[in-house]
């Protein structure tokens, strides 16, 4: 009998949010045996928390909408740093991916004509977001979950993958543990799709769930893959502020999409000052900075935020269109949003940076390794538009599933040396064996404080450098962790591995933020307030592991061909 429980598939998909589920469905449909592995129970992934909608140029509400406009909006929102090919595929394919959800049983809100209804959102020229009240993510994950369980996929729940395994240059498997039993498990596969989501748990105030610890980012990095655009992390303009227990929880952009107005303590509608044309529906980077500035300059709400008011739309309308928000504020903050304003402040929401992938197949720079969804980089450039994440998951989930299945086709499985697995096992069990060491919870809290304070909405060289110094110190402390208990469902033990991932992504974020000496999209340097379109606007930051060290460099952005460049000239 083998020492380690082993499963063998053509393709494994790590992560079962929107991207992972969509990838697994596609991979299985193309005849590849497919294993889907997730840290939580199925259907609990972070996608479930997406609220406002999924962006697709269906043109059901505004018939002038087209993929061309969606493409342009996305590139402009990303300050032209996006992988244009990803933005193009995304704009062209999103409508079919959304309709496909309907074929699989999703029930979107309807127009009067009985088609899928669409709402306005920041940075989108037309009403473009297909939605279900303010619980669009839940609808999406249930639909994909339902399709997935009837697609011949094996789902492995509550399993954490800790290491990718390579044979030469290519990935050949993944190693991890069952959260329940603590037993180790090996997955052999010819191709691997990372769909592990984002990194928000490195921050103190975040809208992200506990799973968002950057596992995919860090495993890809350790396997030698390049990460791109890591300085760009999105602070969603509107997170809850009060009470402290719920600080950071998302207040959907749909509040502004449905007519919500932002005011400061003087009652001024301050977006008139920052973006008089688009006002509250400006892009997220702009709105986040505006709220931050109002509070910094002493015009904040009692708990240090801005007022967001949608009560003028009437109680019935608000309850029908924003039911989760109504309950969220009622239950957590004792505030009736149909009667008065909410208090909001930016919260860490989304990482634009991620594994550098090919737009066509989602393959990374490591053969056999693919990435889709938030863990992949490039699609959103320097700033993501609201609603473009759910569509990204669908478009590139499908492409990654296809790419991985095609890559795996006809390949035989490589063997995995037992010594390697023993090395992983020893490494993972070390915190039980250490006689002295740090508490992983303490280091996590310290890291969250550092990221919140030094790598936030506004950045300076001095601050970022201090942040890096502190991350280095935390890395050192995290080398010797100590925990109690057994391997059975032990959150303290789980955190030890997650912490390692968070430290890697935090360092990447900080080092890229230091290197980009300009302000662009979500990256705002107080010491370099202007955008440098001539030089830095033509470069993506790239992070890779070289000789055991984090190497930060640049690559020229992908050149857009003339036929698409023309689209942007028309506006001038």
């Amino acid at each position, binding site marked *: 009998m083998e020492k380690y429980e082993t499963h063998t598939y053509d393709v494994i998909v790590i992560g079962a949010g929107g991207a992972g589920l969509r990838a697994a469905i596609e991979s299985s449909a193309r005849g590849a045996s497919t294993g889907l592995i997730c840290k*939580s*129970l*199925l259907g*609990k992934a*972070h996608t*479930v*928390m997406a609220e406002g909608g999924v962006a697709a140029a269906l043109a059901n509400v505004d018939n002038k909408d087209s993929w061309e406009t969606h493409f342009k909006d996305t590139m402009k929102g990303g300050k032209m740093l996006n992988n244009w090919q990803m933005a193009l595929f995304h704009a062209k394919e999103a409508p079919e991916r959304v*309709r496909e959800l309907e*074929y699989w*049983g999703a*029930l*979107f*809100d*309807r127009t009067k*004509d*009985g*088609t899928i209804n669409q709402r306005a959102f920041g940075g989108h020229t037309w009403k473009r977001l297909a939605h*279900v009240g303010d*619980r669009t993510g*839940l*609808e999406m994950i*249930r639909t994909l979950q*339902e*399709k997935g*369980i*009837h697609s011949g996929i094996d*789902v492995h*729940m509550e399993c954490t993958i800790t290491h990718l395994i390579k044979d030469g240059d290519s990935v050949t498997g993944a190693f991890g543990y069952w959260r*329940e039993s603590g037993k180790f498990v090996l997955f052999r596969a010819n191709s691997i799709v990372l769909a592990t989501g984002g990194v928000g748990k490195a921050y103190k105030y975040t809208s992200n*769930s*506990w*799973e968002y610890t950057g596992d995919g980012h860090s495993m890809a990095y350790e396997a030698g893959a390049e990460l791109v655009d890591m300085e760009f992390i999105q602070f969603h303009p509107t997170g809850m502020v*009060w*009470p*402290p*227990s*719920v600080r950071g*929880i*998302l207040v959907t952009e749909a509040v502004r999409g449905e007519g919500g107005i932002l005011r400061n303590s003087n009652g001024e509608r301050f977006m008139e000052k920052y973006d008089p044309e688009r006002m509250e529906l400006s892009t997220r980077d702009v709105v986040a900075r505006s709220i931050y500035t109002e509070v910094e300059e002493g015009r904040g709400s009692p708990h240090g935020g801005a007022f967001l008011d949608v009560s003028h739309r009437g109680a019935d309308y608000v309850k029908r269109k924003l039911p*989760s928000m109504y*309950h*969220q504020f009622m*239950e*957590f903050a004792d505030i009736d949003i149909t009667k008065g304003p909410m208090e909001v402040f930016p919260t860490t929401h989304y990482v634009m940076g991620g594994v550098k992938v090919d737009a066509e197949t989602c393959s990374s720079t490591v053969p056999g390794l693919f990435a889709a969804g938030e863990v992949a980089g490039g699609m959103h450039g320097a700033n993501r538009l609201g609603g473009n994440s759910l569509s990204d998951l669908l478009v590139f989930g499908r492409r990654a599933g296809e790419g991985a299945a095609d890559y795996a086709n006809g390949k035989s499985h490589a063997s995995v040396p037992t010594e390697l697995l023993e090395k992983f096992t020893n490494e993972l069990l070390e915190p039980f064996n250490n006689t002295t060491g740090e*508490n*992983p*919870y*303490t280091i996590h*809290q310290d890291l969250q404080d550092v990221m919140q304070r030094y790598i936030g909405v506004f950045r300076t060289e001095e601050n970022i450098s201090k942040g890096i110094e502190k991350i280095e110190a935390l890395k050192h402390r995290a080398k010797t962790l100590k*925990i*109690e*208990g*057994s391997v*059975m*469902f*032990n*959150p*303290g*033990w789980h*955190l030890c591995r997650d912490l390692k991932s968070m430290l890697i992504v935090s360092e990447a974020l900080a080092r890229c933020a230091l290197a980009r000496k300009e302000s662009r999209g979500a990256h705002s340097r107080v010491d370099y307030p202007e955008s440098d379109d001539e030089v830095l606007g033509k470069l993506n930051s790239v992070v890779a592991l070289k000789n055991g060290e984090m190497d930060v460099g640049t690559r020229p952005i992908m050149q857009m061909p003339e036929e698409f460049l023309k689209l942007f000239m028309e506006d001038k």
Partner: protein
Amino acid sequence: MSVAKLRVFRGDSQNGEEKEYEVPVDEGMVVLDALFYIQANYDGDLAVRWNCKAAKCGSCSTEINGKPRLACKTRMDSFAEGELITVYPIKAFPVIKDLVTDVSWNYEVSKKIPPFTPAENTDWIMYQEDVERGQEFRKCIECFMCQNVCHILRDHNRKDAFAGPRFMIKIAEREMHPLDTLDRREFAREEAGVGFCNITKCCTEVCPEDIHITDNGIIPLKERVVDKYYDPFSWLLRKIKGK
């Protein structure tokens, strides 16, 4: 800042006991925050499932002072000053460790329900009033608290015969989908055991999404089943067709 006393179940399927912890209470704090405090300061290995901490994922179902609750949604200031707070795993499912239970049975049941099956050449026109019935059931966050309080599952452990409220509304949602073509009435009766429900509405009361599980889901489903099996015309037709 006041201090709360919590007694939390610590143990596994074999052994277990209550362990008492003192936790400082901050404004607006919820029971899940108190459990985090325990993890960070006393017992790092305290097992509890959670994901979103915003009442959207349905992972942190526990029994707080004997009542099934989402730990993320139960505020500490809902208890009287000095009131002892007990936290137990949900009772209808086997304990794995501490507050974590084995809910895998639910996923097995879910898989058996015949999926949405539209007709070919559908035009996909649906009106808001037609989708709203299904949308209500699709609010379900699968916290399984309705499964936990259902006496058929909790007290009589008839998981062999009854799929539980969560899956009654899943069947109902498919049945009420304007463009679905399958008939799941036989499945509802024979496989899912809709007849077992005697409408005590415990499931509806506990639902954190305020879904009218019994009134809008189970009762209409029962009526459809009755129409099929006890309608004299269908009965005659079945006799003639020999089904």
